[in-house]
């Protein structure tokens, strides 16, 4: 955490509960960076999260109103708060399992209603907190505690899903692309309506160790290499793209 952003943290908070090498600490830093650069008053912010590691990014760390809810239901809780008090600047931060699996229905309906929410989905492609089970975002072949022979089901493309449901602004960036990610969060905060950012965040403890990454650093390095911006992707062949993760801002073309 940058020292200049410590004023955004709740007094008394000295450490995060995240594992060494987890991407969520970087994301925490970048969210606060975006809020700082947008000059948003934390008194107006409400952070809503579900259940899982990513849900602990705002609660209890951020020095603002925080609502730590049920598994999967963050967007439904956020809808009630925002609709009753539109002055609240409401940001949902949660994980992929929370927002896209158990909460998938609320995600698409939130996007359909186009309620003014900023939704940040920290995607580590696995159920981290419960011990590394396969997720609806785990890549094909991923080794997890419930897919020891490799995941056989296709993962969701979360950006396409949310875009298809009608979100105003959709982006995907990795915690290894900090400047692009801060800009996306700022844009999302400044765009009225439902906005969604998928943030790729490595989970060395549950995903990395089962999928033969040597170290957390190795996982970050691989993520850096795999993530390319969509403009770059245009010039690559299908074979060259196979191993890549296309990042950027997405619209319906």
């Amino acid at each position, binding site marked *: 955490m940058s020292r200049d952003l410590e004023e955004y943290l709740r007094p008394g908070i000295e450490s995060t509960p995240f594992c060494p090498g987890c991407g969520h600490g970087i994301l925490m830093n970048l969210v606060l960076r975006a809020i700082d650069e947008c000059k948003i008053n*934390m008194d107006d912010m409400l952070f809503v999260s579900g259940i899982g590691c990513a849900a602990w990014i705002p609660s209890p760390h951020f020095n603002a109103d925080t609502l730590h809810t049920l598994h999967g239901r963050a967007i439904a809780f956020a809808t009630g708060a925002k609709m009753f*008090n539109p002055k609240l600047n409401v940001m949902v931060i949660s994980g992929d399992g929370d927002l896209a699996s158990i909460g998938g229905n609320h995600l698409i309906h939130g996007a359909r209603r186009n309620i003014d929410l900023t939704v940040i989905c920290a995607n580590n492609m696995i159920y981290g907190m419960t011990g590394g089970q396969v997720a609806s975002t785990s890549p094909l072949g991923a080794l997890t505690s419930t897919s020891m022979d490799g995941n056989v089901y296709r993962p969701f493309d979360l950006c396409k899903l949310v875009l298809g449901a009608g979100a105003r602004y959709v982006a995907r960036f990795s915690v290894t692309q900090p400047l692009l990610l801060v800009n996306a969060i700022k844009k999302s905060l400044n765009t009225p309506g439902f906005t969604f950012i998928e943030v790729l965040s490595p989970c060395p403890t549950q995903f990395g160790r089962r999928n033969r990454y040597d170290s957390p650093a190795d996982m970050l390095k691989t993520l850096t290499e795999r993530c390319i911006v969509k403009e770059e992707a245009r010039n690559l062949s299908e074979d060259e793209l196979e191993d890549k993760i296309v990042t950027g801002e997405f619209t319906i073309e």
Partner: protein
Amino acid sequence: MGYKVIESTFPAGSYYLSGNEAIAEGAIAAGCRYYAGYPITPSSEIMERISVRFKDLHGVFMQMEDEIASICSVIGAVWAGAKAMTATSGPGFSLMQEGIGYAALTETPLVIVDIQRAGPGTGQATRVASGDLMQAKWGSHGDYYIIALSPWSVQEMYEQTIHAFNVAEKYRVPVFVMGEEAVGHLRERIEVKDTLKIFNRKKKKGAPPFGTDQDDGIPPMPSFGDGEKLLVTGSTHNEIGIRKTDDPDAHSRLVNRINKKILNNRNNIIQTESHHLKDAEVVVVSYGFTARSALFAIEQLRKEGKKVGLLRLKTIWPFADEIIHDIGQRAKTIFVPEMNRGQIIGEVMKYASCEVIPYNQTNGEIIHPHRIINEVRRLMQ
């Protein structure tokens, strides 16, 4: 204390309304300005009326994607400062249970109307039952306490909905209006007064929102946007909301307090109505629509000179334990007719020392007065 008298938003006078419409008006009168729900028979008329009535009142009506989202968005709105409600029936009530436990643990005041229909499963969606009373008490996991009311008329659908908001706000607890299809769809005359008493949640700047030294056990409740930088969590927490997921004392203290704040105040919460109890040898204990049949039945039996009485439970939870104990000391027999396989009778048996006789009907029909008359006659032979 804490109540104030306000003018009714619903003009005073006589109205001919259905029970479901009366619930909508009661909620609005009590100050409900956020409603989220999902269509389900036989409760949908509540959301239909609210969706129209809210337009002039700057209320927020949300038709959500399911009952889970409905209860969750209600909780979100309440923490944003609203008085809020949802209404449903059995299957929707089942879906809401996790949210109800969350509301109980976070001490979120809200009202849930359950217009009970014949279950389990999809059952008979348009038919009456009162099969959800134990679910109201025990539906979510863990130990918590709620308040559940049982209206028997359209008038009471209106009044008990107002009362539900008042006790929800007073005790910071989810409150259930356990209506039944027969009252929800009943049309009869109601009288609306020009004023009503309402209770608004206590607020105290800087006071811990999840703990109190006060005897009543009810902490003040701030809202999002008040600058209090609230920490609301469904995990075990301390008095300011910091998660305490492995502290035995914190868990025991929190769970005990959210139960005791209702149980210790139960004599202020419980409402009953007595008919001919003084010399009654047989006492019918009844609630909801069945109590209408029971009252008709005991009036008939009194004409035959039979010493029968009626205790009507207007509050189901917390249960009227002391009153039942008292009746059990004096009466020979307590008779409990229910539109279920026997739910409240178990509570009666816990506290009554006399003979307790059930009458259960689960055919989707109301219990007709003549059935109660015949059964009580047989008991008194």
